[in-house]
């Protein structure tokens, strides 16, 4: 019964999505208030039914209702409850339902918080979001119904893939998807602007907070995914340039460029066609990512079970949505750009360079991700492209960008005097150069040109980001302090600096050793001694494991005891490595068990990873900066309504 309710709720949601899209869009076109007012209630209705459907699926998992095919394929009676819930989005059909749910949530949020938007604009935005909902709901109902029945039901399910039985699974996809789906709001705003042919600073002010929020979630989602892969996959890597990872990174790059481009459009009314194109691109890349993951076209450890029929549907959907947007763009964008000027040394220039470099980086990754497909289609061979190329090709545009970030942040709009700029930056610059050379050499024992460049870049951005907050903190009483927008920017950029430093140091100074060890033996890696004190059999809720006890000492002093496991999950009988990590703010020690080598010996993977936490911490700080910026006064409705036109006054950030 419950699955049928869930299925029926989806059908109702579909019909509401039709109302939510068709009526407001027509209403906006004809200036018909009655039709436009359908938008909000329809969106709420759609959310209600999608939520009901989602709840039905979750209930089926919790009740271990194996008459539902999806539940039977991905769950098991012995599966802990928290993973039963997480299993809802652990495979294709359920993750689609999650996507649809989040889209409905974002839509209702837009409906709720758009009282200051002209009605026609909000009607169009919600209408476009409705079209997207319609597409996804149709896709689900036609090709990927999570409520398909399996009768008679098997006695027990096939269990969730052990790799996914982890708390990281519980939180990574929902947060990531919130980001992906959130870019649809910027997309909808862009379409709405193009439909009217008007794009002004007010439009940018409305669009910007939504974009920042989506970007925040995506940042956290990607960072979580990286951290999860690190401790779950058992070999200490945190980024593999896997097609699915790239599929999440590309929208992030476009989204970052979009936020910055929106700043220019909001402040100066410039870069309108850049902003539009970036808004279209960010969401298009999200959609593209969905396609790549679910169509079977690319081989990846992340990819969902493949089905070309689904791939075809998504491809057609992609074609219509993106193709339509690009056609609109080609039609409307030429008429939009304004003539305001700016000098070469100005914030506009830096932000333009920012856009260009981020787009280059994104394009490069897109090429690397799709090249194997290209070669295969044209029969030039079956190829794969390793991480070293991605790292090189990505670093090329990114290094100049890191240096430019520091300068651009302190450059005035329209025109900046070089002398004043240099005076501001020479102290942070000097600190950065000194630290960038000294830290690797002194703390990690080696000088290298590339390492220093990376470290300098990291320190540079960090020090330079502190300038404005510091100035505000030490300001004379009574003078205005730093706006939240500027504070958010400083914090976010500081996060970027930390991130850059972390990547540089960990890439250059990581020590990885695969060794053969016998119980009782000690091995030395990176100045730490690792002693395998014991090997025991342990029992988990749905697995059996061999657990090693590793005692770590440095200079004789006890550091940590780690217990890596080699698990065998009962149902699927597949082995899984569960690494053990001793985390520290400035280094991780990573231990994983391998296989028995004979003669009592076991293979072990031991790794020393300096500053690796800076990577994820930096990302979190970036997201936090976004939060601060998004909470800026001028985006809050009540304040804006009161301040009226004063809100459009230019501010330093």
């Amino acid at each position, binding site marked *: 019964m419950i699955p049928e309710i869930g299925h029926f709720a989806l059908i109702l949601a579909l019909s509401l999505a039709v109302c939510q899209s068709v009526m407001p869009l027509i209403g906006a076109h004809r200036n018909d208030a009655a039709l436009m007012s359908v938008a909000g209630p329809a969106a709420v209705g759609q959310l209600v039914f999608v939520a009901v459907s989602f709840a039905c699926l979750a209930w089926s998992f919790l009740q271990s209702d194996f008459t539902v095919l999806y539940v039977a394929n991905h769950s098991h009676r012995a599966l802990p409850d928290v993973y039963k819930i997480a299993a809802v989005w652990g495979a294709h059909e359920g993750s689609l339902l999650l996507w649809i749910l989040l889209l409905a949530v974002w839509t209702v949020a837009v409906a709720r918080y758009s009282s200051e938007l002209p009605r026609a604009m909000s009607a169009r935005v919600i209408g476009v979001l409705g079209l997207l909902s319609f597409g996804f709901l149709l896709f689900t109902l036609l090709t990927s119904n999570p409520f398909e029945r399996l009768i008679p039901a098997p006695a027990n399910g096939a269990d969730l893939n052990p790799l996914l039985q982890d708390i990281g699974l519980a939180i990574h996809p929902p947060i990531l998807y919130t980001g992906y789906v959130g870019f649809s709001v910027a997309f909808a705003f862009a379409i709405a602007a193009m439909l009217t042919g008007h794009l002004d600073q007010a439009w940018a002010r409305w669009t910007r907070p939504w974009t920042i929020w989506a970007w925040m979630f995506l940042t956290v989602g990607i960072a979580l995914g990286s951290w999860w892969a690190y401790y779950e996959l058992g070999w200490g890597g945190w980024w593999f340039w896997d097609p699915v990872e790239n599929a999440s990174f590309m929208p992030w790059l476009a989204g970052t460029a979009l936020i910055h481009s929106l700043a220019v459009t909001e402040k100066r009314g410039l870069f309108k066609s850049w902003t539009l194109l970036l808004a279209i691109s960010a969401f298009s890349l999200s959609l593209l990512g969905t396609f790549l993951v679910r169509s079977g076209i690319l081989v990846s450890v992340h990819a969902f079970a493949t089905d070309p029929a689904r791939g075809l549907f998504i491809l057609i959907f992609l074609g219509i949505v993106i193709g339509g947007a690009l056609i609109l763009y080609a039609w409307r964008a030429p008429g939009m750009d304004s003539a305001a000027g700016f000098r*070469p040394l100005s914030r506009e220039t830096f932000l333009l360079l920012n856009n260009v470099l981020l787009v280059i980086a994104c394009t490069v990754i897109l090429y690397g991700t799709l090249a194997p497909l290209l070669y295969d289609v044209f029969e030039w061979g*079956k190829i794969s492209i390793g991480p*070293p190329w991605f790292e090189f090709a990505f670093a090329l*545009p990114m290094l100049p960008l890191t240096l430019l970030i520091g300068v651009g942040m302190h450059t005035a709009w329209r025109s900046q005097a070089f002398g004043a700029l240099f005076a501001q930056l020479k102290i942070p610059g000097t600190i950065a150069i000194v630290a960038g050379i000294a830290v690797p050499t002194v703390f990690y024992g080696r000088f290298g040109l590339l390492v220093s460049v990376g470290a300098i870049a990291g320190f540079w951005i960090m020090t330079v980001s502190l300038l404005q907050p510091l100035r505000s903190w030490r300001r004379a009483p009574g003078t205005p302090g730093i706006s939240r927008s500027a504070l958010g920017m400083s914090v976010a950029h500081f996060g970027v600096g930390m991130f850059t430093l972390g990547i540089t140091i960990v890439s250059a100074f990581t020590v990885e050793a695969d060794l*053969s060890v016998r119980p009782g033996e000690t091995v030395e890696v990176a100045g730490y001694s690792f002693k395998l004190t014991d090997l025991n059999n342990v029992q988990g809720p749905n697995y059996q494991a061999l657990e090693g006890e590793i005692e770590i000492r440095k200079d004789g002093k006890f550091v940590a005891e780690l217990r890596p496991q080699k698990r065998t999950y009962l149902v699927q009988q597949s082995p899984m490595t569960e690494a053990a990590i001793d985390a520290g703010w400035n280094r991780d020690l990573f231990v994983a068990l*391998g296989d028995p080598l004979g*003669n009592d010996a076991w293979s072990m993977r031991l790794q020393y990873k300096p500053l690796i936490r800076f990577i994820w911490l930096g990302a979190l700080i970036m997201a936090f900066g976004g939060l601060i910026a998004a909470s800026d006064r001028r985006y809050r409705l009540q304040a804006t309504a009161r301040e009226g036109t004063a809100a459009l006054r230019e501010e330093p950030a």
Partner: protein
Amino acid sequence: MLAVGLAAAGLVIASILTLQAFKENLMFYIEISEVAKGNAPKDRNFRVGGLVVEGSVTRVPGELEVEFTLTDLNEQLVVYYDGILPDLFREGQGIIAHGRLDDDGSRFIADQVLAKHDENYMPPEVAETLAKHAAAQEAALDAETGQQ
């Protein structure tokens, strides 16, 4: 103007470097039979795939280094690997290895060994090759028995 010129030059150099790096980092998948015929690059990395021949996994007890033989049901290739094999590696399983041939072309020195994350699936390239050679074997067998 100078700035624009420098930027353009920088872009051109960067593009050339990137394309260069692309060619160097490109790894082709090469069938074991092709390797046996000598059609594999001598001095760059490439990928091979095949079945791990039963009973071919040998290691010096207590050591990490391991050797095993891969087959595509037509030819064989000895693979040497110094590292921890993936969880789903076992004899009879289809796996893919990245690496290069050693100096005399007799062994494949792998720097990565990959097994699919699901033990019941085989990399499609490997399956294709295997089926091709299985069919060839059958045909050859039929021809022999036909002649007798």
